[in-house]
């Protein structure tokens, strides 16, 4: 592998990591507070992409598309939380099973509605095309995704570390029951976190739609990546999601270049190892 190829492969890995972080951060937030894998997260991502696509087609505005994807999915997530998930709150297995059921329905409805073609979302005009960085041609949009991921990471860190809401979320992760007994409506906090997670999934769906396109199956693909990210990085930890995204992004990028046949081993092997050796992940446990 030449120097240029090495750099480019690294850049690819990092930009993929950016998208992965956007998806996985919402996933890990929900896990951290509820102790539940929301396996419908991939479908949220997919619907974010489709909503963004439709809005872009109708209005031509990328900002509106992003908002539609993020807010539309957040709204849908809120409704699902209120009508479905809340009924089994605290029974972890039931929550996971519900999320599986919902993901099946959402994916199938997306197929019925939007068909099977792979549709792409055009990037905003300012981010179309590519730039040359030290002899390396890289797409502007991929660069922007890295920047966006860093911004979202900082935003989430500030929210969690510096605000009262963030402190409430962390307290809920530490000891949900105690928080409840001190007069904080934990259900509402959980609902808010669920909506926030959905919002991130929806927004990342629009971004991912530019990256890879929107197509049936993107939901399961992204869900699996998010799962590997949070398991490798550490379940329920924001730093874990950062570390996990970068690791998985790079492993994927180099894995595809060097050993495409072993891709699944390269991805799921580490996940299995981490689960067995350090079930809470490399940086598990803390938000």
């Amino acid at each position, binding site marked *: 592998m030449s120097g240029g190829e090495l750099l480019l492969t690294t850049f690819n890995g990092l930009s993929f990591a950016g998208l992965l972080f956007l998806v996985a951060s919402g996933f890990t937030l929900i896990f951290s507070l509820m102790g539940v894998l929301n396996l419908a997260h991939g479908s949220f991502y997919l619907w974010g992409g489709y909503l963004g696509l439709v809005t872009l087609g109708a209005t031509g505005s990328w900002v509106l598309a992003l908002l539609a994807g993020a807010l539309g999915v957040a709204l849908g997530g809120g409704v699902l939380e209120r009508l479905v998930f809340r009924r089994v709150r605290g029974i972890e297995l039931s929550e996971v099973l519900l999320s599986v059921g919902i993901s099946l329905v959402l994916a199938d409805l997306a197929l019925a509605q939007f068909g*099977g073609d*792979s549709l792409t979302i055009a990037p905003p005009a300012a981010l179309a*095309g590519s730039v040359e960085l030290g002899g390396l041609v890289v797409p502007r949009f*991929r660069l922007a995704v890295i920047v966006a991921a860093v911004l979202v990471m900082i935003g989430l860190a500030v929210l969690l570390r510096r605000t009262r809401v963030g402190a409430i979320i962390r307290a809920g992760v530490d000891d949900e029951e105690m928080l409840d007994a001190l007069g904080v409506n934990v259900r509402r906090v959980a609902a808010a976190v669920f909506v926030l997670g959905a919002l991130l999934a929806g927004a990342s769906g629009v971004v991912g739609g530019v*990256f890879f396109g929107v197509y*049936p*199956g993107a939901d399961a693909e992204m869900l699996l990546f998010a799962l590997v990210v949070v398991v490798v990085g550490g379940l329920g930890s924001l730093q874990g999601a950062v570390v996990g995204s970068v690791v998985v992004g790079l492993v*994927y990028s180099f894995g595809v270049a060097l050993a*495409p046949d072993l891709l699944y081993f390269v991805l799921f092997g580490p996940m299995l190892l981490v689960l067995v050796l350090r079930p809470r992940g490399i940086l598990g446990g803390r938000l």
Partner: protein
Amino acid sequence: MRARAFTITLMALALAACAPPAADDVDVHRTTGPLSIGFVDSLSGPLAGAGTDMLQGARLWLDENGGTMSGRPVELLVEDDHGSTETGVQVTKRLVEANGADLVIGPLAGNVGVALGRYVTTTEVPLVYPIPTSDVFVHENYPTVFPVTGTAPQFNAPLGQWAVAKGHRRVVTICSDYAFGQQVCGGFADRFRAAGGELISQIWPPLGSSDFAPFISQLQRTPADAVFVGLIGADSVKFLKAWKDFGMSGRATLLGSDPAFDQAVLRGVGADAVGLVSVGHFAEGRDNPLTRKFSESFQRAYKKLPSYYAASGYLAVDWTARAIAANGGKVGEAADFVRVMRSIDYPDSVFGPITVDDRGQPVYSVYLREVAAGPGNLPWNTVTETIPDVGATGGLSYDEYLSRPIFSRGYQGGTP
């Protein structure tokens, strides 16, 4: 009590074994009443876009012909295989065993095709295979399967010779790593090397890869003058996007296989697609009355231009209808029916002229295509060059061809 229960069960079993259940017979020799035609297709899963086109092509033929063949109303029993082998076999079993289908048209996905080919040979029902098949079908030559549009390598072989003739001597291939992609690639690679070209490397992304950027980075410093693209559907869209995003346009020529720059892909790419060069046995922008009429009526009916999947669905139904007419308005015995299908030639069709060779493999004209702005400024494939009479073997004799292995990742042509 338990002993008695056991005895009863044994007796029932013994009784059952003595008198096997009777098979239900379907009368395939009827010449009146509705024809029931099974249609197995991928309407969900990664190939759903193409599958929808194929079904719409078939529906268009039926709409144009009043929903009848030889005066008999056609009941089209549509089944979705989700691109999965299991489901494909399941639904075909239902069509054949429960619904009493007279014949089955399908499937789309290559993996389903191999399984269905094996399954139908155990039944009395012919299989009309609309999409280029696996090479397996040439080697095994099932007597009750008719491959309407030839094989996967067949239409890519001419591009190998053409590339060398146009001065593209050093080529990298990037093809989907599953049977169909491997065979598409094999057809090209075999003839390309036979013509003196040098295959620098071969890249094999899995079907349904998420991110094509890593593959692009492998291409970025390649000394190749051209890249052969054997990707399908969504993958091809993603590849073209990454190709453009990484500023690859102009660095090497892209040479598309027949599925790579098909209409099902162009719809997802849009105006950027103009100028793409590929090979194929169908071109929706071909200047020919039959094709023009087909493209127009398809666009009128479905608000999009037809892909070769759509054309294949259309032709498969048309060919079936002609065979039924030639067979006295019935399907009859499966092997007989396939023999009738093999006896039909098309002086012209939406694809162009078609004949059938001695082994029952169809022979097509192959087009070198270039994407141009079509009706409503939508991109479509136009014909720049026509190569007539392309058969399944890439110009080899059947003796030689059949002595070689089936194209796979491990065998990409040449003397094994």
